[in-house]
């Protein structure tokens, strides 16, 4: 329980100046890291040391550091968000690593997520998928009283299970085909399980899937790697639901 000190670690990290330059691994050593520190706090300390040595700090995406904003995105020792389950990188702690270990840090690997710099990738493709239909078409105001739309407890819970997706992209990074199916299915399920989302359900599934294909994400072959690496444990049963919604929408055209 008490924090220990890791005396020395080697950090092997992907460095890439910008989208058009070629990247390569660099290895840095870092000393005296508390096991109670988060992985990103370790990165902060490393960066401060690099700055003092006149080396450009490592660029990585992060923000809330509470495991909810979905900004952080590192591939650590071959796994999205590192060697722990159900956590984002910001919630990964150094107690998961061993004295003297060499930790390999890479950006998300997917053609649809091009590298911007070092460990930062461009996830705009996710935005475009959601803009293709991931919403209920309702304007502000003029809506009925909330309790006139009853939702069965179980449906609300299932919808919430899917809505918990934070859009981090770990599912795409974990998939050997770089498929975005888990992400898309989470949004489709979130809205399909609620009466408010029914009217547009068919169109939504069709448009979002078409956009996903257009943007260069691969197909789903049901390996389940996405579910394993998802920090929010989004279930692949959502993918089954998406397939059903999609099929129905194709058949009813």
């Amino acid at each position: 329980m008490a924090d220990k000190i890791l005396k020395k670690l080697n950090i092997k990290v992907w460095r890439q100046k910008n989208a058009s330059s070629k990247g390569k691994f660099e290895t840095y050593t870092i000393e005296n890291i508390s096991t109670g520190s988060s992985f990103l706090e370790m990165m902060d300390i490393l960066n401060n040391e690099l700055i003092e040595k006149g080396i450009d700090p490592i660029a990585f995406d992060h923000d809330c550091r509470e495991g909810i904003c979905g900004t952080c995105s590192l591939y650590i020792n071959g796994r999205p968000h590192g060697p722990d389950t159900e956590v984002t990188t910001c919630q990964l702690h150094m107690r998961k690593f061993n004295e003297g270990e060499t930790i390999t840090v890479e950006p998300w690997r997917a053609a649809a997520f091009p590298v911007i710099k070092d460990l930062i990738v461009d996830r705009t493709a996710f935005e475009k998928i959601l803009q293709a239909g991931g919403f209920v078409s309702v304007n502000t105001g003029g809506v009925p009283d909330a309790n006139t739309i009853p939702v069965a407890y179980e449906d609300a819970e299932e919808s919430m299970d899917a809505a918990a997706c934070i859009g981090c992209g770990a599912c795409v990074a974990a998939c050997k085909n770089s498929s975005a199916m888990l992400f898309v299915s989470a949004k489709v399920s979130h809205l399909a399980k609620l009466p408010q989302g029914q009217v547009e359900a068919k169109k939504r599934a069709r448009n979002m899937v078409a956009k996903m294909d257009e943007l260069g994400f691969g197909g789903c072959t049901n390996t389940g790697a996405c579910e394993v690496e998802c920090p929010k444990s989004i279930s692949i049963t959502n993918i089954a639901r998406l397939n059903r919604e999609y099929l129905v929408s194709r058949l009813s055209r």
Partner: protein
Amino acid sequence: MSILNSKIPEGPLAEKWSKHKANIKVVSPANKRKLEVIVVGTGLGGASAAASLAELGYNVKAFCYQDSPRRAHSIAAQGGINAAKNYQNDNDSVFRLFYDTIKGGDYRAREANVYRLAEVSPNIIDQCVAQGVPFGREYGGLLANRSFGGVLVSRTFYARGQTGQQLLLGAYQALNRQISKGNVEMYSRHEMLDVVKIDGKARGIIARDLVSGEIKRYGAHAVVVATGGYGNVFFLSTNAMGSNGSAAWQCYKKGAFMANPCFVQIHPTCIPVHGDQQSKLTLMSESLRNDGRVWVPKKKEDAVKLQKGEIGPNDIPDEDRDFYLERRYPSYGNLVPRDVASRAAKERCDAGFGVNAEGKAVFLDFKYAIDRLGKDVIAARYGNLFQMYEKITDVDPYKNPMMIYPAIHYSMGGTWVDYNLMTSVPGLYSIGEANFSDHGANRLGASALMQGLADGYFVLPYTIGDYLADEIMIPKIDTDAPEFEEAEKEVTGRLEKLYNIKGSKSVDYFHKKLGQVMWDYVGMARNAEGLKKAIEMIKEIREDFWKDVKVPGDLDNLNPELEKAGRVADFLDIGELMARDALDRNESCGGHFREESATEEGEAKRNDEKFTYVSCWEYKGESEEPTLHKEDLVFENVKLTQRSYK
């Protein structure tokens, strides 16, 4: 006569907003098409405003520093959102929500604004449900509610422990719909660095493309700032790492008054600081206080043993535990408001009863609730929070009590705005946490989400029309105008200056130093001597910063250190203004304990005779002292009384 005109409508409290809406101007659909609005920040306030304005027909440009609007810090709010729906038939009402909010804010908020907030709160829930926000439900299919700190009714709507995330996703979905229709141009990974004024009116902004480093000009008929709070001035806070006060500070430098800057909220249930490698604090939802009991040992020797790690919490029998909130505040118990709970925790720890190695933590214990309700019920209610706690601390809260300590959480102060949410610069609006208006000196739980969405969905879309109705003859703003050129030159000059210092210390070094001064002297307990000292210390840090900061990387590339440097430069200025404001306010109020203003028992003592005002600071120039203007707070509908939760 003050130069501030709050534009609070005449008439009875309950009729002010409807009368005002009937009287303010409306822009015709044909003219809305010709008008452009810039919205900076895309959290609950910004996203809901941008979506609503675009739905109305305005051309909207929205900006955020994150890679997606979905990542705004509103997403981290856990517990819930209040609304005066009275679905539980427990005698809730608009007036009761208004009253609780005014009282919870220690009578330092505007009556009219708070009443309007309570009045539109039911519409927010209707709106979010229509958008598909998966709120918690009862088995009959209707919406569920829970109670929250500082309140005796159940009026809080929630989506597990992720309410902020779900509400933001609702607003983000509405925003996405407008982006896809071409009504909103979205600029992600862009940071506003200045606001541009032409003939005294806000006419656009200067922003930096954070990927390419390019500085660009954007014109609009009105500018809305929705950039959240400045809590990161303390370095360690519950704010997201990128949350900053820079946009609001640029508004201040362009003539928008800063109101009540010394008011920041201290949240009682954060995971305590450990060691010196920490970058930020993590909040545990206040909803935990519904079932968790807060305690420290009764005997000091037990506390010392806990601090040394010689015994564990379960070694201390019930009769030796001091449930100090239940002891001091029997009617509210563990559900007292945030400021009361925070101050009480600090008091116990300062007296030597803290329970972690640093002596800066108290227990939040679920043993009693588990005994009463069973582990499954507790897991269903708080499972994800318990899991998060265990991931961070490596302690299982089902077996051992959680350790918590107060932390900086939310900015009560912010840009001064009138009833229309317009700052003292015409055409420049400020909404959500970025403005000062609705929370006074303290915020009740579940009211921040309410304000962000109220402003964005239901207030600004009406009030901005009143201003824009007079702008319909103004053609598209020309960004080649000399005012834009000058602002761009200023921004570029400032970035180059920072970059060319090439000193020896990192940005974080200065930020941590500033944070320490802020916590020690401008934090939960303050006195005049300490505040004066803080002002001098901040000046020294600033001087050192501008001489010795080291900004690596390039100006024309993605450069997080450059971004941070600009924000910390502004935090140094904001910190000084906070200390000045705190020095002026010689009263204890909300979470802010002014040592010179205490009752005989050492409780916080408000001074209504002298301080029933909003302090509004006017920028006078870089090396000039700012001028203090006062907006007197007039209470016609509530009687100012000492807050009691006993």
